[in-house]
């Protein structure tokens, strides 16, 4: 099953309360995905020449100061870590890909959840309501966000197997559905140098998008490629620095609803999540067509 939510703020009021709305939407999707939850929030861009990492540690007593010192030694300036439950956000004076590479090389015990200038990814096992409380989701201000509630089918219930998956700098993917050709595709993508950390099918879709984007495809082209190269059921939502995109497979077994008002654009697996937003009753609501890529970005709204 699984539930997907996305919210794009068009007004300062919605930006101000982004986390509160996101948490409410996520909790509505508990019955679709009670085993794990996660969000990608686009907020507080790093200053020019700096980048932002979200790191996860399985150690509840992680000494984040040691990571900070390591990054300072390697790159120069780095802000004090902002810690939320098992995750920490570090803003470092370095190129995002280099900082990401440093953590992977020097701290293989940590997991880089996201890297970029603006994205932060948080995910954990457990009920969406518990997740929202543990990570203080209601605090978040930001321009847009995606969320996911998971009911696992293809791989184990772990933090790493939760969504969103990072697909590159400032990019992420959430997925409702299941892919059937993920093993073969993972082998092929590994030969292309794409790194996989789990046996999860969605991570393969994320890796596929990362590979297509690396090879020069636009986000729309990469998503359209999914229609031919991925076998299985999916509604995807992809977060970018400027907005988000939605794609359903051509059979469209997995649900999706989109809605828009003057203040926001929202997507969800079900109306229940959108009904909690201000002004939802008056929103324009519709079902995205199968096999069609929908994109909302700051410049286009």
């Amino acid at each position, binding site marked *: 099953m699984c539930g997907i939510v996305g919210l794009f703020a068009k007004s300062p009021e919605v930006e101000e309360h982004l986390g509160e709305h996101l948490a409410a939407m996520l909790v509505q999707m508990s019955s679709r995905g009670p085993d794990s939850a996660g969000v990608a929030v686009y907020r507080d861009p790093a200053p020019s020449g700096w980048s932002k990492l979200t790191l996860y540690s399985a150690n509840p007593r992680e000494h984040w100061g040691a990571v900070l010192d390591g990054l300072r030694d390697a790159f120069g300036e780095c802000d004090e870590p902002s810690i939320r439950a098992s995750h920490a956000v570090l803003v470092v004076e370095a190129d995002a890909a280099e900082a990401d590479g440093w953590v992977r090389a020097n701290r293989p015990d940590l997991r880089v959840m996201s890297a970029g200038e603006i994205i932060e990814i948080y995910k954990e096992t457990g009920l969406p309501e518990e997740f929202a409380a543990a990570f203080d989701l209601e605090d978040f201000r930001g321009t847009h966000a995606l969320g996911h509630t998971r009911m696992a089918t293809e791989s184990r219930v772990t933090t790493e197997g939760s969504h969103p998956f990072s697909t590159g700098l400032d990019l992420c993917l959430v997925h409702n559905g299941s892919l059937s050709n993920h093993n073969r595709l993972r082998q092929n993508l590994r030969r292309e140098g794409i790194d996989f950390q789990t046996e999860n099918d969605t991570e393969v879709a994320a890796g596929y998008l990362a590979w297509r984007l690396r090879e020069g495809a636009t986000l729309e082209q990469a998503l359209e490629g999914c229609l031919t190269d991925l076998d299985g059921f999916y509604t995807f939502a992809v977060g970018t620095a400027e907005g988000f995109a939605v794609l359903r497979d051509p059979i469209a077994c997995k649900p999706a609803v989109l809605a828009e008002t003057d203040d926001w654009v929202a997507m969800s697996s079900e109306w*229940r*999540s959108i009904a909690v937003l201000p002004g939802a009753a008056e929103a324009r609501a519709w079902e995205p067509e*199968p096999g069609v890529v929908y994109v909302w970005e700051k410049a286009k709204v």
Partner: protein
Amino acid sequence: MAVAPTEIAELEVVDLETTSVRELNQRLHDLAGGAPGPRRFRILNPSGAHALACGLDAEIEVEIEGHVGYYCAGMNKLATVRVHGNASTGIAENLMSGRVVVEGNASQSAGATGRGGLLVVRGDASSRCGISMKGIDIVVGGSVGHMSAFMAQTGCLVVCGDAGDALGDSIYEARLYVRGSVAGLGADCVEKEMREEHFTQVAGLLEAAGIDAGAGEFRRYGSARQLYNFKIDNAGAY
């Protein structure tokens, strides 16, 4: 002791902000078999909740003020359920009789497996509208998505707009009427001649649905009877 009609409120308003779906459905089920109680209900704040007004078995009218979740008005007998909003997956699933009206759009599998009664969608219906229909009549004011009337057995699907790909795939004896374009016909589904009885049937269904459209503009599609084991001797049974 019988309750005098004057003691029963004409209209009961149920607010789902303060009443659970289970309580609402139980309230409506309690009216089965002509039990005394109000004959009209107004449901507020549905907020996309699932399984609203399911399994009704009484001549009552239920107005739902907003968007509904999955399987609204499923298995309905006798009742009229009107949704003043959009409906999610499986509106009026397995409708037995009575009438279900969606003022907005319906998501996939609208009227699935319905055995009787009338489903009206004033806006668009999504994919698989009328999948495996078995006697229900469905009138859609807008368009329907792909795989509509898949394995449809009997009943009518009237589409005032366009139909998506693979219309009527593996169809049995249902009748499909489409006013606009058809993106593609499914296996064993063919266009058929519109005879007088068909114009009359479309006109009757449009009138019942309260949709203003000229019956003369519709085309008819149905089974070529090559895929399933059809015996002409049994034609009268359909």
